[in-house]
């Protein structure tokens, strides 16, 4: 069992290494056309990921069927003696990690296949695909890690891969800057994450995750709270939550498959996965959950409103991801990790689908901006159909999978403040009395409902502006369907986006479900009404004065720039000036004073022997008097 999981993790890594070095060797040797190098590298990319997907699937099936009593199966390769707490390099498959593993490998496979077509004429495809394989193995390492430090290793390698892939088209300075920003913000989060690991590991006396999870009662509440809060910083960084979310919209500078894989399904989901993985600790730290709830609330509504005002299709989806992730975080804050994970799975599927469709649209419309699209439903029927499924799942319209998972999350948030009107106690497994203070619970539930409405609005707006109205594309009848290699993964992903909802046996809570569908349709209707008025104009004008603010995502980015980036750059220049004048000045100064002193002394050496002798006798007198007086 363990060998299988280890292979699942290692195979993509080996694929990455092969992909990086292989084509270079080939190009070194054969100097053949770029296209053959792409085909050669494609093998190195797709095959390992496919095998990893199969292995993950088998492992998941074996664990889920309860072959091992539902408990985790762990194996350690070696133990690294660091001097205090040892680091156990090992893997562990739990129910949660098995499922996530499958999601990751499936989406990765879809993206790899999709990229072969998408990157057909890109000279740097081999390194691109290698980095995706590296990312896949890093994500699997995070998912299957048995030790917090091993998890952290995977955690940061993911950050690196997102940097490398966002900056894939580095000829354009903007992409490079976006990549740097993405890495730095996540790196800031990772530092908090590392400190969180230290706090918890020292509290539990070991880095192993199962030790930490079992020994949490022994830890004091302050240690627990501080540890989990620091973990939250890491989660916020990686899953683009409220304070550290500014990098995700800029990350859209990367190729669309990357956005699909990393910035929709997997990496950003890692944050939520971690919270779920260490959920007992979070349960024991109510203040952390309260903070999480507030973060979620802010993130949800803000991102949704921002999505409504964006003109770039990918940025709409990016903000939608932030909003949905905040939604999952809200579910977690409402103490229901199953709902959150369920929503994570469905979101992974339909958001990847939406991004891949967006890729097709942009590939055809040759522009990201929705103002340049329109009337594509006739030209691209398959894409239109799959995108419609995606948007339906996003809005939570039955029968799409989004409906079920959003409903479960909403119900959890509804139950949070204790007595939500008209909700049947249902199968909400909130055995522990909801310790989330009433007020926060209400805020959370209120914003959740508002978010559902706004989600309906921006989903419809995006849907209408891309597929309906007059074709505004400047490039004539260029809009035709994409190549087969890009369409198959889209169709492959459309299936779970539609049917995943039914996989979970839990029946939906009809009360909240009805309410959410109503709100979604209300939002959609409002947008449709304004759109009907003037099909070419942007329905976002219904935001009115808020539009400008929403488009700039409430100026959070400019605020960070002013608060952090510019002062650090000024400080850097100040440090260099200080280093040159003060610290180095002192050193050069001592040299100059020595030379100055020697200049002064030289004056006494003017060659006059009588001066010498007077100096001699005077010096002697001083010595004699000194000796007699002191002696």
């Amino acid at each position, binding site marked *: 069992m363990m060998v299988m999981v280890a292979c699942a993790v290692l195979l993509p890594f080996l694929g990455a290494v092969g992909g990086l070095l292989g084509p270079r060797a080939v190009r070194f040797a054969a100097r053949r056309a770029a296209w053959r190098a792409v085909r050669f590298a494609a093998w190195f990319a797709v095959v390992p990921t496919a095998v990893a997907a199969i292995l993950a699937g088998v492992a998941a099936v074996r664990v889920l069927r309860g072959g091992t009593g539902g408990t985790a199966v762990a194996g350690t390769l070696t133990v690294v003696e660091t001097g205090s707490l040892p680091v156990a390099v090992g893997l562990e498959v739990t129910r949660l990690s098995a499922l996530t593993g499958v999601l990751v490998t499936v989406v990765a496979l879809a993206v790899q296949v999709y990229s072969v077509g998408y990157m057909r004429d890109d000279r740097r495809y081999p390194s691109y695909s290698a980095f995706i394989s590296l990312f896949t193995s890093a994500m699997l390492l995070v998912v299957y890690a048995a030790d917090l430090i091993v998890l952290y290793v995977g*955690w940061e390698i993911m950050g690196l891969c997102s940097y490398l892939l966002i900056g894939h088209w*580095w000829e354009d300075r903007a992409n490079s800057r976006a990549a740097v920003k993405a890495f730095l913000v996540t790196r800031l989060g990772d530092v908090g994450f590392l*400190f969180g690991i230290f706090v918890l590991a020292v509290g539990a006396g070991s880095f192993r995750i199962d030790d930490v999870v079992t020994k949490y009662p022994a830890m004091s509440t302050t240690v627990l709270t501080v540890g989990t809060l620091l973990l939250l910083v890491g989660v916020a960084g990686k899953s683009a939550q409220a304070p550290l979310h500014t990098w995700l919209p800029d990350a859209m500078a990367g190729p669309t498959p990357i956005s699909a894989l990393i910035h929709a399904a997997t990496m950003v989901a890692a944050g939520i996965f971690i919270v779920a993985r260490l959920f007992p600790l979070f349960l024991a730290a109510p203040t952390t959950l309260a903070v999480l709830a507030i973060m979620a609330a802010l993130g949800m509504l803000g991102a949704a409103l921002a999505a409504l005002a964006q003109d770039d299709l990918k940025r709409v989806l990016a903000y939608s991801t932030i909003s949905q992730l905040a939604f999952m975080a809200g579910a977690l804050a409402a103490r229901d990790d199953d709902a959150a994970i369920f929503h994570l799975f469905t979101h992974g599927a339909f958001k990847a689908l939406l991004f891949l469709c967006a890729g097709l649209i942009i590939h055809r419309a040759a522009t990201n901006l929705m103002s340049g699209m329109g009337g594509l439903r006739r030209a691209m029927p398959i894409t239109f159909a799959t995108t419609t499924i995606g948007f339906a799942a996003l809005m939570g319209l039955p029968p799409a999978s989004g409906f079920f998972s959003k409903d479960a999350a909403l119900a959890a948030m509804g139950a949070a403040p204790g007595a939500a009107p008209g909700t049947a106690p249902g199968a909400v497994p909130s055995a522990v009395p909801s310790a989330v203070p009433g007020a926060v619970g209400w805020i959370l539930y209120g914003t959740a409902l508002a978010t559902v409405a706004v989600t309906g609005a921006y989903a419809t707006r995006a849907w209408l502006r891309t597929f309906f109205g007059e074709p505004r594309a400047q490039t004539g009848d260029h809009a035709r369907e994409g190549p087969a290699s890009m369409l198959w993964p889209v169709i492959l992903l459309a299936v779970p986006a539609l049917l995943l909802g039914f996989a979970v046996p839990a029946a939906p809570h009809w009360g909240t479900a009805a309410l959410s569908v109503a709100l979604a349709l209300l939002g959609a209707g409002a947008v449709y009404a304004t759109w009907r008025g003037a099909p070419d104009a942007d329905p976002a004008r219904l935001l009115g004065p808020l539009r400008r603010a929403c488009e700039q995502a409430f100026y959070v980015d400019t605020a960070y720039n002013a608060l952090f980036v510019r002062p650090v750059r000024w400080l850097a220049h100040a440090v260099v000036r200080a*280093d040159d004048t003060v610290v*180095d000045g002192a050193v050069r100064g001592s040299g100059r004073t020595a030379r100055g002193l020697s200049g002064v002394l030289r004056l006494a050496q003017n060659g006059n022997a009588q001066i010498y002798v007077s100096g001699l006798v005077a010096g002697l007198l001083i010595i004699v008097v000194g000796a007699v007086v002191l002696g």
Partner: protein
Amino acid sequence: MTPVPALAVPVLIVSVLIVPALGAALLLGLRLQVRALKMYGLAVSGLTLVPVVAMAVTFDYRRAAQIQHEVDLPWIPGLDLRFHLGVDGISLPLVALTALLTFLCFVYLSGDRRTERLRAMMSALLLLEVGMLGTFLALDLLLFFVFFEVVLIPMYFVIAIWGGPGRRAAALKFILYTLLGSVVLLLGLLLIWSQTGTLDIVALAHSQGAALPRAVQIVAFVTIGLGLAVKTPMWPLHTWLPDAHTEAPTVGSVLLAGVLLKMGTYGFARIAIPVLPDGAHAVAPWLGAFAVVGIVYGALACLAQRDLKRMIAYSSVGHMGFVLLGFATLTPVGVNAALFGNIAHGLITGLLFFLAGAVKDRYGTADMAELGGGMLGRLPYLGSLLTFACIASLGLPGLAGFWGEMLALFGAFEPAEGLSRPLFLVFMAVGGLGTVLTAAYFLVMLSRVTHGPPGPLTPSAVGDVRTFELSAWVPLVLLILVFGLWPKALLAITDPAVQTFLEAR
């Protein structure tokens, strides 16, 4: 590896020093033309690597804490100076690093056609190697000091003769500043000697500073610490490093950053902390404070640098800050982190300076503004190697740079008892911030140099990476990966030695 009885092969350790010394001496006499000279250089540095590897192989890793391959001959009874060499868990990795880096430098030199007066350069490098290896092998305080100073003159001439435009001033500042440091170090060593009467490091370490009253220990630790801090370099005493690096030739920079800085930190691990435990305890918070300021200061200085080599120099100040923080915690994990960070920094910064040198050879300048960017477009392999080195240097897990920094922060999280916990928590937090700043300046540099449209300067006809450069750099890349993915390789060697002298108190 069958444990060979430790004392059976003293010839190995002596030959490690004799071979380069003889090589340098012979060079003065020999009249070889360029091709044979390069082969000679390779042969001698290779020959030095052989006994080092032999020592590593025959080293009994189960007793890593014990001094092995020991040689102890009286040299100057008048000064109680004994020719006492030996190697243990702490010094073995550093000796190996030195021998390897020097060999790679000679490999690099064998391909480089533009160095004139090659014979003098090679003899200077071989003398340098004798000094470096001697410092790591010496187990007698004065012998350590002698080898500590052997390095000065060759390094001065390497910078002063083959350096860049402002080389004379830089070389002068380097040698004067480092000499002041080493003389202060000498005063500290003599203070220990006058109190205990012995110069033998092993005996002093075992006695755990018993014979030294607390006040003397503090004074001795401060003087020795200052001497070593100049060499490390610690924050306020670092201004010689950027100048020395900007002007030094590629090979000089690699050895200066790769090994010379480690002699300072090695001094802490071998002399300052084991011999003066109470002194270490009293001064640790200050050491930690300066280290942490060094981290942030170095990172900020790098952000605003224009010259590539100068930026890498300041980055060394930052990385050495982490190493010093590791020492300041006085915990086994901290000291392990410091020693690991030493080796990692040696490999990574050695590679970085090789690459910077290659960039300077091809573009004629290391000024980032003039380079203009787009290197990945023109020189893809050089660009990707530079990216790899920068990522390794900013401490990405899975590469060697990470473990040194992470364990140092972990050490700071739980400093030795008696050290104020909140203070070290602040150090840890600032250190963490430092890692973010480190990532910032490396990535900003990468985006300015490798990314973006091709800049105005076109690289010389030399073209992308050549075979001799690759053969010099690939070992470093491999080692960075190996130590990144398998930190046990190093931690298992240093941990027993560190446990003995920290725990025994």
